């Protein structure tokens, strides 16, 4: 068992002929992910690492009706269009790697996806991995191993950092989801937590947050209200970031009086979550609750 992707995942790579799309198709295949097709408009008929390429999702799905998941490496200006195409082609999970998508566009396709029952992961995210079963993303596969810890994270590289420290400590992961660093994302902490709550393999959840927004506070509320019942360990990036400054393209910014490090830690601790001061403390905290 796992969350959202697993043994049954069959992937279409949108933007497969691009530099990143092609490179990560290779890495995903090496990891064992079942990629059934790729799509790049105008490049239909080619192959990329043995994966057949189609011009449109409609054609790809017609030839590979078992496809249920797509991953998008399309440049920002065309990425939203690719998301609608994936949703309309009936994908259940769409992972949007692309960064710099205008937030109004994301807001719209996320609402559209919800109305169609599609789960969007991202944009501007590393993707999702169920170690040993399927990697639908750009994370280095070798730093993960199967096990009982679910990870949900707003930060890509911090996910790697923490997953790697867990793996080195001998603690494996059920599924790790990088939800993306943009102001609007398709899958929020609390939505991801609903999946982890139901997953029997997941025994502990590691929540990796950042300053800005109120997703961590909402996660804390969910735990406090008993809607998430498994032990949670957290790390929040940005303890020393100055307020009012935008940290990075992604827009980690403390605005409108909410989203400070202190608020988030306070809310999480009140809900019984143990919050690590540095990422390297996570394995120890996880061991204590496993």
């Amino acid at each position: 068992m796992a969350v959202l992707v697993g043994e049954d995942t069959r992937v279409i790579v949108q933007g497969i002929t691009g530099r990143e799309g092609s490179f990560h198709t290779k890495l995903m295949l090496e990891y064992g992910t079942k990629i059934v097709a790729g799509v790049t408009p105008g490049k239909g008929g080619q192959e990329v690492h043995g994966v057949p390429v189609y011009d449109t999702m409609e054609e790809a799905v017609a030839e590979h009706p078992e496809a249920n998941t797509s991953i998008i490496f399309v440049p920002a200006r065309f990425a939203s269009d690719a998301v609608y195409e994936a949703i309309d082609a009936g994908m259940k999970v769409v992972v949007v790697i692309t960064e710099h998508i205008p937030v109004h566009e994301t807001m719209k396709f996320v609402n559209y996806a919800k109305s169609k029952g599609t789960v969007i992961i991202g944009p501007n995210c590393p993707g999702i991995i169920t170690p040993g079963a399927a990697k639908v993303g750009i994370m280095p596969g070798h730093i993960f191993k199967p096990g009982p810890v679910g990870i949900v994270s707003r930060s890509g590289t911090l996910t790697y950092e923490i997953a790697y420290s867990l793996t080195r400590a001998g603690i494996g992961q059920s599924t790790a989801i990088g939800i993306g660093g943009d102001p609007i994302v398709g899958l929020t902490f609390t939505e991801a937590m609903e999946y982890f709550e139901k997953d029997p393999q997941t025994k502990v959840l590691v929540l990796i947050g950042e300053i800005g927004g109120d997703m961590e506070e909402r996660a804390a509320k969910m735990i406090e209200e008993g809607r998430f019942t498994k032990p949670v360990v957290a790390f929040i990036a940005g303890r020393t970031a100055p307020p009012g400054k935008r940290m990075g393209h992604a827009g980690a910014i403390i605005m409108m009086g909410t989203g400070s490090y202190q608020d988030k830690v306070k809310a999480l601790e009140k809900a019984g979550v143990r919050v690590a001061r540095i990422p390297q403390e996570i394995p120890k905290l996880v061991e204590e609750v496993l």
Partner: protein
Amino acid sequence: MKLFEFEAKDILRKYGVEVPPGVVVGKTDDVEARIKEAGLEPPLVVKSQVLVAGRGKAGGIKLVNSVEEAVETAKRLFETPIKGLKPSYILIEKAIPHDVELYAAIVIDRSERKPVVLASRYGGMDIEEIAREKPESIVRQYIDPFVGLKGYQARLIGKKIGLTGKALASFAMFLQALYRAFVEYDAELAESNPLALVGDKVIPLDARIIVDDNALFKHPELRTARVEESGEYTEWEVKARKLGLAFVELDGDIGVIGNGAGLTMTTMDLVYEFGGRPANFLDIGGGASAELVKTAVGFLMEMPKVKKIFMNIFGGITRCDEVAKGIVKAIEELGGLKKPLVVRLSGTNEEEGRRILREHGLEAYTDPIEAVKRVISL
């Protein structure tokens, strides 16, 4: 990107909103002539066009009773730094007598993933203050992004902040114009505060629009030399933006480079945790090319306050070999390492990255804790 007050007002005017009559002057303008040209009669308001919050309290807004006083005040404001930087433009407007100051804003709600209209009867203060002092006064209305703000919703919001009759109709029309600006300019925020109630109509005394940087390509008319003029960034932040670097200046001496905002912030946190002080935040983002890495390293090497550099990379879409190549290029172009550089490399193509660095006499760390301790000890 934050728009100037006068730009935001121009947009609202274009959408049919009555804004106070005014004129924008630059440093070299004949202010008196410009005021007369615009037919502005005192009393006037002279407003420093900077993009930082709290401009009023910092002395950037002055009410004057004659044209001469306006000219003098403008001259003085051009020389008055607001939170560190002097304005490039000054807006001189007719003062609008009014009794009531409202608050109206449209932002994107991260949790609902929809636009939300915020409004309050108690404008004039900032929204945090309103939220603290009159939390019950803030009306929130979520908007379906496909349907947009309907007239009935705008009226409902107006009604809930106590407006009736023609004032309500005027407010509803204003909100629809503000929403249009929000959508057509891909705004993260479109706000008026204070929004004055003058008899039967509303007039925005201030206006703020923040355009999503990712959507700037849709608005080529907005690509100005704003970065320098804004008063929003330090000298080195301006330089960094021109180079395309996601950079924030801090007050320490250890240069920090990371990939991804989360890891870069955490790197700052680690530097603090082990007793150092970061000089900056510099995120090379995902999938950085050797060229970008070279630019980033070169930039910190040149920045005087940076005494040593800590680079913390965990490769995913970013490849460690590209990073290593960039570091090597920077060293070669600078003719050697000018400042101590500690590199931590993990993840995609890590071995190849290490090999490249080793060939140039640099040993990369695997453990970030060891690396941060090392850089602080230097």
